[in-house]
């Protein structure tokens, strides 16, 4: 009974937050609602027993996307003569038909899910049966790296492509408004960072290591690490540059190139493409992906080609 009540509450909150996020007059309120929506969504994932998704949703869907939106919002404010940017006043005539159509779709999918009974020979069940052979405890890591590695490899390529596309646009707009806060040096900032940054890194590494056996993995770890980077950028400890130094370039590319090179290796000794040659390769690829995900997200946030340490004493 309690559980049902909780679920109902979450669903209700999701719908109303979604409506608030897109129908509010003020863009700022919309962003805030979107972030809260993301957090509630994370709760929903956790409720249906998908903790990995819940963490990814909280870190990326709510956290970093929200941060990106706030940066974009600040740019708009900077351009718009101090008027707070507003969503367009009149609603599109298509709004209601689209809402009805989407509602119908959700209905159809829900019905489909209710009707579906687990078909025999389902891929997901085979994953669970095969997993112990590889000494992995986390089915998601198994799917991401062992069974459907190509998907993951291409996802990392998607992230790199997004970064490259964003960088190609840099310089077309006004990039003088940086992501930094205006007055970073309140005395507490340094003390806070000294505690938060090491802890964040610790959490990221833990998530990465835990990924082979329980909830966690490169995507969650990368997102958490990126959060540390965002803090450093916001507090002005790290500042943006237009071109990337060798270290940053390595960080961006580590995930994709490590995955490709290790994936091609089995061809040399006559095994199938992307067969991973042991646990070490899983750890190596996961670490490289974590670094790349974090680097790409930080650079996207800072709208920067590269980063450098800011030494201001």
């Amino acid at each position, binding site marked *: 009974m309690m559980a049902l009540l909780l679920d109902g509450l979450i669903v209700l909150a999701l719908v109303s937050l979604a409506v608030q996020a897109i129908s509010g007059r003020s863009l700022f309120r919309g962003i805030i609602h979107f972030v809260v929506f993301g957090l509630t969504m994370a709760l929903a994932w956790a409720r249906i027993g998908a903790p990995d998704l819940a963490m990814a949703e909280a870190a990326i869907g709510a956290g970093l996307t929200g941060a990106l939106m706030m940066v974009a919002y600040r740019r708009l404010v900077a351009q718009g003569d101090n008027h707070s940017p507003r969503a367009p006043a009149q609603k599109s005539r298509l709004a209601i038909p689209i809402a009805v159509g989407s509602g119908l779709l959700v209905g159809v999918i829900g019905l489909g899910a209710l009707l579906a009974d687990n078909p025999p020979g389902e891929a997901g069940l085979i994953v669970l049966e095969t997993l112990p052979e590889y000494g992995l405890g986390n089915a998601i890591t198994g799917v991401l790296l062992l069974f459907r590695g190509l998907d993951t490899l*291409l996802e990392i390529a*998607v992230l790199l492509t997004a970064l*490259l596309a964003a960088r*190609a*646009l840099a310089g*077309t707009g006004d990039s003088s408004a940086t992501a930094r806060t205006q007055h970073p040096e309140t005395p507490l900032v340094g003390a806070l960072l000294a505690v938060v940054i090491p802890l964040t890194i610790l959490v990221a590494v833990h998530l990465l290591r835990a990924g082979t056996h329980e909830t966690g993995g490169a995507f969650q770890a990368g997102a958490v690490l990126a959060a540390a980077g965002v803090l450093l950028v916001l507090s002005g400890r790290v500042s943006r540059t237009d071109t990337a130094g060798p270290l940053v370039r390595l960080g961006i*590319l580590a995930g994709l*190139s490590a995955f490709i090179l290790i994936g091609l290796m089995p061809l040399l000794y006559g095994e199938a*493409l992307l*067969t991973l040659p042991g646990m070490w390769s899983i750890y190596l690829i996961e670490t490289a992906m974590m670094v790349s995900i974090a680097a790409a997200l930080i650079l996207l946030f800072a709208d920067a080609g590269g980063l450098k340490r800011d030494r201001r004493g």
Partner: protein
Amino acid sequence: MTAEALSLIVFLPLLAACVIVAAPGLSALSVRLGLIPLPLLLLAPTLEVLDQGTYRMALAGHNSPLGIEWALDPLSLLMLWLNTGITILVSLHASYGFPPASEAGRRFWPLWLILFASMNALVLSADLFNLYVTLELVTLAAIGLITVEGKPLALRAGMRYLLLALLASLLYLLGVGLLYGQTGTLDLYLIAERIEISWLPVTALSLMIVGLLIKSAIFPLHAWLPAAHGNAPGPVSAILSAVVVKVSVYMIWRLWFWTAADWDLEAVALLLGLLGGAAILYGSLAALVQVRLKMIIAYSTVAQLGYLLLVFPLAGNLAFKAAVYQMLSHGLAKAAMFLAAANILHAIGTDRLRRLAGIDQRMPLDVFALALAGVSIMGLPPSGGFLAKWLFLEAAWEQQAWGWLVLVAFGGLLAAAYLFRVLAVVCLHPRRRLGQRSRRRSPTPASWAALLLAIGAILAGFFSAPVLDLITAGLPPGLGSR
């Protein structure tokens, strides 16, 4: 050999893209290394397909449904050759507009190589979710390339494309989820075996097809295409029109003729055919009233894509051959036209039609390429376009589908109308400015790239036998007999 070759066909360009980002100093070398070996690498798979028919490869050694499989059949082999051939010739052109060692080149080439690799991965994949990931990569790289010069019109077009493409991806993904729920597998051939036909899989298929129709800019979901293709840099327009929109049509064919081969969907087939017909009429008429050369070519793409949907109502051996041949020859011809238009734009500084009077004397190579490619688009003999349209007419004749027959013939006339409108201004306009020197000349190899592609489109009319044999060998199950 084939497994190694196919792996490199996807990963070599990706690695080259990584090297350019990591070490910009090596960009010229890595662009070459990422592209030039590709035709050689394609030889082994080609021999394999000619010999064995179909080649399947389980990635990481896991067969479907557990893992992802690549399936190389004659159709995907033809797509690989189309993508490779056109990308390499267009790259020749792009190496002048975006020199690899320059700042602009360092932005352009990684995205270009990723786009190339992802399209190769797409046509190889036999897995619905993997297809989704590759299609996302294709779209994202394409949008990056459209906006790579940062021109405001291109930015707006890219943004519109991005939003529509995201909607399309979500629709496709919903369909994939529904099919997985029904069958427990993502392999598009295995689904065909496992599925029990009911309203739910039909809904799933419809969602996926609508998403893919948006991505392939089929009327009335074409709204993003003319602006995006008309305002992108020249080589990007060429690859977008020639290959990028085709890969999503390829996916519709795969779903329709392989996964949903036994479903009884005549009404949907007719609807898709009508959309194709509307695309032919609307695209051609819109091309007739455009004032910029690149926009004419872009609307021509909207029209020519319509033919690819006629295969659904005319389903059969002949129509399928016609559609595949249309895909190949339109790819060559349209890439040639966009490259020629890019050269003209570069030399004159504008592509407004009324400013183009008399450029045939200043830029004979480019105008010749434009005219040759036009011959194929109009469907005049002897050209690849002619052969494709002839096969369509034959298919319609055989099935006594007179409506489609008239449509194909009329579409050719309309194409002739909008292309002769261009050629008339260029070659016959009374205000021909004789002897006027162009301010900037495009380098000759850039013009040759356009001309080679146009010649390819014409030659496709002469040397069609091996390609048609290959298409016949790869006919979808069930179509061969009809």
